[in-house]
């Protein structure tokens, strides 16, 4: 397909997306809108994990930890003193945080930056480890973070969590962040630096031999991923309007892994599609946890059945179709013509069809 056609199609797609968000914001009911926005947040989270795992080859299980940091930082910075006083009834909040209240955007950035700082601190020693050790070490850190949050009563309100976060995660906000993340990732992976990332993933020793400072690349990837996870966590917090340490258990990281594996480890498009699909499916399958009436079997509510289904799905994909939905391929308009949906042009010029959602 000619490049011009690609651009036109991409432009149309972007406009369609904008229109969709606009309509959704106006027309969707509260519940549906929340799911819709949750999709966007998971897009951000899945992309941040894909950056680490799919593009740099670093298997980190610490995502929930960075999300927790981001969520708490943003919450503590945006809640009004009155709200804080209400929450911290068990023991008062540390004075330095009691009267702080800043607007959402700076708070969101702060959330990302603090998470990124922790990523830098943790990553510097930990990234030298081999993949399975790296996984456990990052999991360890996420758990340490969670335990600390649960115990620092005067900073985080401990196990009680924080309620009444201002509803800053509006449709436009979350989808803008999601769009920015996608654009950023495409820009990164198509760039020369992106090639360095992928080289580290494909063959670390060869990458070193070709002059790439592998340790530096890994840290950069880890920190950027941490930033995005922090932002994602903050957005999640302000969507749910309550946060507590139990939200940020390993299960949360697991959900994101699920999405990334299903969509294809190394495909941004895959992560986007899978985020939406899984978020919707998670809701749609909620009925599995409640009373069921299949013709042969009547049950009175089997909580956990939903996650059984998802776990089976994950394992099926990992065992039988490791590449997930998209493998390492990205969306291109050429896919449609290859599937026979668009008329083919007689003389196909050489080149990759790169019309991937760049607005």
């Amino acid at each position, binding site marked *: 397909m000619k490049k011009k056609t690609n651009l036109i199609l991409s432009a149309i797609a972007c406009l369609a997306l904008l229109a969709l968000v606009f309509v959704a914001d106006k027309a969707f009911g509260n519940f549906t809108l929340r799911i819709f926005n949750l999709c966007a947040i998971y897009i951000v989270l899945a992309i941040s994990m894909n950056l680490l*795992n799919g593009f740099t080859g670093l*298997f980190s299980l610490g995502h929930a930890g960075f999300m927790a940091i981001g969520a708490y930082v943003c919450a503590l910075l945006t809640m009004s003193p009155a709200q804080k006083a209400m929450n911290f009834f068990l023991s008062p909040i540390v004075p330095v945080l009691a009267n702080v209240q800043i607007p959402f955007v700076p708070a969101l950035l702060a959330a990302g930056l603090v998470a990124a700082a922790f990523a830098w601190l943790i990553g510097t*020693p*930990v990234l030298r*480890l081999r*993949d*399975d*050790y790296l*996984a*456990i*070490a990052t*999991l*360890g*850190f996420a*758990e*340490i973070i969670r*335990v*600390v949050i*649960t*115990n620092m009563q005067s900073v985080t309100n401990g196990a009680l969590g924080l309620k009444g976060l201002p509803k800053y995660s509006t449709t436009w906000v979350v989808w803008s962040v999601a769009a920015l993340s996608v654009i950023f990732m495409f820009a990164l992976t198509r760039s020369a630096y992106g090639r360095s990332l992928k080289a580290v993933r494909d063959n670390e*020793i060869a990458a070193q031999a070709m002059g790439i400072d592998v340790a530096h690349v890994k840290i950069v990837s880890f920190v950027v991923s941490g930033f995005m996870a922090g932002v994602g966590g903050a957005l999640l917090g302000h969507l749910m309007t309550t946060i507590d340490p139990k939200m940020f258990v*390993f*299960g949360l990281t*697991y959900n994101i*892994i699920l999405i990334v*594996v299903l969509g294809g*480890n190394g495909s941004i498009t895959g992560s986007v599609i899978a985020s939406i699909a899984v978020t919707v499916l998670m809701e749609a399958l909620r009925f599995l946890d409640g009373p069921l009436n299949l013709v042969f079997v009547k049950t009175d509510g*089997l*909580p*956990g*059945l939903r*996650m*059984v289904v998802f*776990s*089976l799905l*994950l*394992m099926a994909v*990992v*065992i039988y179709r*490791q590449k997930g939905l998209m493998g390492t391929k990205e969306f291109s308009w050429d896919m449609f013509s290859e599937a026979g949906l668009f008329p083919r042009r007689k003389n196909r010029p050489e080149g990759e069809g790169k019309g991937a959602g760049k607005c």
Partner: protein
Amino acid sequence: MTIALFLQHLTNALSLGSLYALIAIGYTMVYGILRLINFAHGDIFMLGAYLAFYLVTLALLPWWVAFLVAIALTAMLGIGLERVAYRPLRDSPRISIMISAIGASFLIENLATVLFGGRPKGFVVPDIFSQVLHLGSVSVVSISVMIPIFTFAILALLLWIVHSTKVGMAMRAVSTDIDAARLQAIDVNRVVSFTFGLGSLLAAFGGILWSLKYPQLNPTMGIMPGLKCFIAAVLGGIGNIGGAVLGGFLLGFIEIMIIAFLPNLTGYRDAFAFVALILVLLLKPSGLLGKNQVEKV
């Protein structure tokens, strides 16, 4: 702190350490052979406990029969797990098999929630285990004393298996070099199955002993012990059975003793293991008894 209190803590530490050691061995054996962190191992531990529970309460078997049957069944489940979730991925990148392990772990936990219900159940503790013994001024529950004894007996048996039987030798061969082992006509699949069976057996045993001491069952009871025991295995030197035992005891001691002397850190109890992990990985990744492995370039 009085001597009596200290001795009580010591007994607890010994018990906890033994339990951790039993579970850690399973991790280290599997890792030694397959270079795989069996995330589902903690859930096997949980299944052992639940199976014992149901065999006693539903099948109404005498407790010692129930326990033995539960252990055997769990061993078979462990073998089955390997067959289904890990064997197909043996030649795949390590990340895939790790994801499968995580998936299996969640699957088992949620399946357990569906089948057994999410609410905690009380384990049935036969009287012999709940006797309170008075040794001088120290009072301990009989199970606390029996756990280390049972553990050492099992460990002796295990060492015999690993060092004096053919299967044990095969296990050590596969753990050193899986391809060379194949070339020596060792049936790797059988060795792997045996290893999983053995590891699961120990985990089930640990699960039952655990429930005798801490009689509250719930489907997620295996998560924390599982993680901590993997850490114990890493502490001692992953792939090394002696290391796993050492690591298990060490971790048990650290956990109990820190709380004993610094009770206001009780809330951070679970974090100790993770801190220990990070320290080991940074200072001596091969663990206390482990050897450094160099990658061939």
